[in-house]
């Protein structure tokens, strides 16, 4: 495998960071300001996309910024897993920006300049995590993301936003300082490096089994962005944010950074072989499946649409963790693909929730009876999005779940198979009633007039696009499947 | 050595320790700010006593080399007669000159502060000041 030194990954990160400057300076002219966001988004996406052929060829792209500590540099490395994630995040940023314009202007939100600036910052951090070559760089961008999203979560600046913001930071910053930081230092102390490698840099000789197990557990819970119970309750709280924030950050960027970090730690730090030989994957798998089932059950009882989606996200994130925990090639492929597939499905759902809020001001599911008559496009997109999250064809979500199911068989973990199937049933149970009630109800039951009155086009176009992509991914899963397959090949050394 | 002998042989140390304790006690437990300052000065003086006493020797003289009474020249005679044993060590004394300057300055600043405190609160009793602050 050959390594190419290129500054591209750094540029991909810097584009949105630097975009903050023109965004702030053109604050008096909203159109120009949004132009900068789009420009940065498109440039970022093209830089990321331009790396696909190189990576699919089996090469790596590396760039070292500075050696900050002995043997640890701020260093970027683009591999297939990182690229997959970066592709999803940067692609969806463009879509979300379009949606943000519609949403924020539709609601005449205050402080839009701050909003767009921190959004750009958050994306820089996300791509930074995706391209980190070692644990320190990953931690750096992980923290940057936590802080950059704080003003977004608390955008409304009212008492509710403050208490949610507190919860958000307590969980996310608290766990990363209290768990990840010491775990990282101990890891460094034991192994002398933090550089991710394909088979992991931790060796069984470096520490006793209990220490390794403890470190793994600390890491997994420390990356609270992954929403593993009991460190999940920041996510429903973060739903006070404007919907585009929930859509991109709390269905894609932030939460996926959490699972991505877990994936990296499992494969790049400990390594599949080590975890397999110590049988630690199973422990992790049980933790993840507990979260999957619990989150789905809680989701059933939520009336607020965004909160239901949040709990659904918590469950789906643990699918990805489960994929990593099963340590089999198929399951890992499924887990990685799920990063992309779930992203498109879930973002569609959030866009729909936002569109409903913009058009009608409704947040609760019980108030949405008959809404399909008024907003048929939105609700149809919602239907496709839920199919993808449940994992039914013809949507991309089916493929990733299929691989996960195959993985459970491959890993000989039948209980997990039932977890996955049971969870799919639960997913269906909390999604179907929503659009069933939206379309199929008597005129008396309907809370809406029988006249089409959709949200602004800026809101509708993105959700149509993402739902279309969800379907498209079923037929052409290529970049994701290819990248995930390659990543697994590297990890398993096959 | 008998306990009594220890005390007597090193009486200079015992004096400085005693003075120091008096000073420390006043600094920490007196209520009147001026008394605290007096304690501080006693404390500093104790250390000066300590330093000065370690330079002193019984039967030694001041460290000034006298002219040879016959020839009037210093050097030749001095070269033969200088014996450190005969002179007190001047260095600790000199050091204490500096320390005295320091302690006087500290005293000055402290007294100036007390004047300011008196102007501000109308009292220099610590408990009364604390009462006013609350």
């Amino acid at each position, binding site marked *: 495998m050959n390594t190419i030194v290129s500054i591209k990954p750094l540029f991909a990160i810097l584009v949105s960071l630097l975009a903050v400057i023109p965004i702030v300076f053109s604050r008096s002219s909203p159109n120009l300001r949004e132009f900068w966001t789009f420009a940065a988004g498109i440039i970022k996406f093209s830089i990321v996309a331009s790396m696909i052929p190189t990576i699919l060829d089996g090469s790596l792209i590396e760039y070292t910024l500075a*050696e900050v500590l*002995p043997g640890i540099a701020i260093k970027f490395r683009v591999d297939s897993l990182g690229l997959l994630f970066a592709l999803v995040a940067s692609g969806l940023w463009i879509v979300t920006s379009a949606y943000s314009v519609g949403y924020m202007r539709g609601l005449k939100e205050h402080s839009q300049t701050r909003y767009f600036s921190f959004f750009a910052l958050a994306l820089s951090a996300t791509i930074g995590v995706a391209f980190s070559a070692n644990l320190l760089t990953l931690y750096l961008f992980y923290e940057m993301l936590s802080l950059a999203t704080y003003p977004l979560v608390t955008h409304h600046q009212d008492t509710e936003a403050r208490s949610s913001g507190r919860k958000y930071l307590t969980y996310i910053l608290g766990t990363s300082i209290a768990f990840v930081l*010491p775990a990282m230092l101990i890891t460094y102390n034991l192994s002398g490096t933090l550089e991710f490698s394909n088979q992991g840099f931790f060796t069984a000789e470096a520490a006793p089994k209990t220490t390794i197990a403890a470190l793994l557990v600390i890491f997994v819970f420390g990356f609270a962005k992954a929403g593993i119970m009991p460190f999940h309750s920041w996510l429903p709280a973060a739903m006070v944010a404007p919907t585009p924030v929930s859509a991109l950050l709390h269905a894609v960027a932030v939460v996926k950074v959490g699972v991505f970090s877990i994936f990296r730690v499992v494969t790049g730090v400990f390594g599949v072989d080590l975890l397999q030989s110590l049988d630690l994957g199973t422990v992790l798998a049980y933790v993840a499946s507990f979260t999957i089932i619990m989150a789905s059950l809680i989701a059933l009882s939520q009336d607020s649409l965004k909160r239901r989606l949040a709990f659904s996200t918590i469950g789906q994130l643990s699918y990805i963790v489960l994929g990593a925990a099963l340590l089999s090639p198929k399951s890992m492929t499924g887990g990685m693909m799920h990063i992309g597939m779930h992203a498109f499905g879930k973002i569609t759902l959030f866009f729909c929730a936002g569109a409903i809020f913009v058009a009608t001001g409704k947040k609760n599911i019980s108030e949405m009876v008959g809404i399909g008559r008024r907003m048929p496009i939105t609700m149809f997109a919602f239907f496709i999005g839920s199919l993808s999250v449940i994992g039914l064809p013809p949507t991309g979500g089916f493929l990733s779940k299929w691989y996960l199911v195959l993985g459970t068989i491959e890993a000989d973990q039948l209980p997990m198979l039932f977890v996955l199937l049971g969870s799919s049933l639960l997913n269906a149970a909390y999604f179907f009633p929503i659009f069933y009630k939206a379309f199929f109800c008597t005129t008396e039951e309907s809370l809406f007039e029988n006249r089409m009155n959709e949200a602004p086009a800026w809101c509708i176009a993105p959700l149509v696009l993402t739902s279309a992509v969800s379907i498209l991914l079923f037929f052409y899963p290529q970049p994701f499947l290819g990248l995930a397959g390659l990543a697994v090949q590297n990890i398993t050394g096959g | 050595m008998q306990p009594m002998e220890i005390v007597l042989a090193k009486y200079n140390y015992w004096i400085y320790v005693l003075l120091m304790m008096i000073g420390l006690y006043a600094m920490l437990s007196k209520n009147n700010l001026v008394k605290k300052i007096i304690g501080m000065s006693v*404390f500093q003086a104790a*250390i000066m006593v300590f330093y000065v006493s370690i330079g002193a020797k019984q039967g030694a003289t001041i460290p000034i080399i006298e002219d040879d009474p016959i020839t009037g020249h210093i050097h030749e005679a001095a070269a033969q007669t200088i014996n450190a044993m005969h002179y007190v060590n001047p260095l600790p004394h000199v050091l204490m000159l500096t320390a005295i300057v*320091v302690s006087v300055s500290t005293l000055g*600043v402290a007294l100036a502060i007390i004047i300011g405190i008196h102007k501000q609160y109308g009292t220099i009793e610590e408990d009364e000041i604390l009462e006013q602050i609350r």
Partner: protein
Amino acid sequence: MTPSEQLPILLVITPLLFTLAVSIAGWFNRKICYPITIITLSASLYISVALLLQVVKNGEIHYHLGGWQPPFGIEYVVDHLNALVLVVISFVALVSAVYSKESVKQELPDKIPQFYTLYLMLVTGLLGMTVTGDAFNLYVLIEISAITTYALIAIGKDRALISSFNYVIMGTMGACFYLLGVGHLYIMTGSLNMMDLYKILPPLYSSHAIFVSFILILVGLWAKMAFFPLHEWLPNAYTYAPSAASCLIAPLMTKVSIYVMIRIMFSIFSPAFVFEAFTAHNIIIWMAAAAIAGGSILALAQTDFKKILTYMIVAEVGYMVGGVWLANRLGITGAVLHILNDALMTLCLFLAAGIIVYKTKGHKLENLRGLYRKMPVTMGAFTVGALSMIGVPPTAGFFSKWYLISGAIDAGHWGFMAALIFSSLVNAVLFFRMIEVGYFEPFRDNQEEHDHNTALSPKIDEAPLSMLAPLVIVSISLIVVGIYTGDIVDSIIRFTVPAGI
């Protein structure tokens, strides 16, 4: 001798002479005090950077005052450790001098010459403390800086006088203990020169007198650096000092005292004595852990943001003391690095606090209300300082914490590590408490009226440029120093760890 060989003495003499110049000039025209101060401190910064470069290039510099050979004369020594501290001192002094202009004009309009006289005198004292290689000379310089600090604090408002008085008592006690310790050393060795003492002492390491002298010196310095539980004087003194004075005192006094402690531990005594013959180092690390925890907990109880910052200083002192006493390479590297980083962080926060006081005339938490909107630049820089205190990469604070925690792991000292993590968490809580007030209040609770864009938000109302520029420079330097940590450790701090560790 060429001028470049005279740099060590020029470094101390320049501000000393200009102290005189400022006080005389103040009689005629108080407007020129400020420019004189700036020029003097720029010269100091230039000299100290030149010294640092010389040391990095050629190694230690020994300068004999008046040409007297040590141990008879006073010797100034510049090595990697104090060259770094000198640069920190003169940088901090210059930056906060630039900043002080408007703040002094507002807070002390009739005491401008006095302020700058004391200011330069304090800088002289601090530079002298750092550069001297003589134990008694060190005492004199400690007292010079202490006395000027008492005065600088006392010219503040509110409770400044009584706080300064408490500081006088504590500070004098500390200095006296130090002097007493040096006296014991002198009795045993007959020398006051540090290098000389270092050579004479080893056979005496088992002596009780040496043991006692070391304890006396340590306790004296701990009182000076506000090492928990001798910290009682610090919070009030630093809170009620004039803003411009606290910007100079808060970042430097404790850090220079810690430097002095390191100097005494490794240049008069040696690791062999400090970590082996003197068996208390484990206790001291626990004391440091207690300092960190205690400072953090006390900070939680405050409602005055300047006082919160001062309690953080108490906690940070624990970081550095503990780091040095961990007795391993990582811990000492971390402690020295933290001298640099903490000076910058504290400076950044106190500059920001000073600006807030300048604008809002108070230092209670409620004075922060709505400041993110009103003063985005100040609060942005404040946030960077806060993140560095919490230890978020890539700010400088993260990297020294990294070294300190690694040192704790290496030494197997889990209590100290836990204290460090705990303090990071508490710092996060404290700063976000401040940030919340600045960001959320006054609340905008009426959900229906979202577009209050202009009605609710007051216009941007920033401080003058002469205050903002230093703040922004310092906050950027926090990130730059963070990114260049590797180089700093490699070319300077690596050499400060004594041989044999």
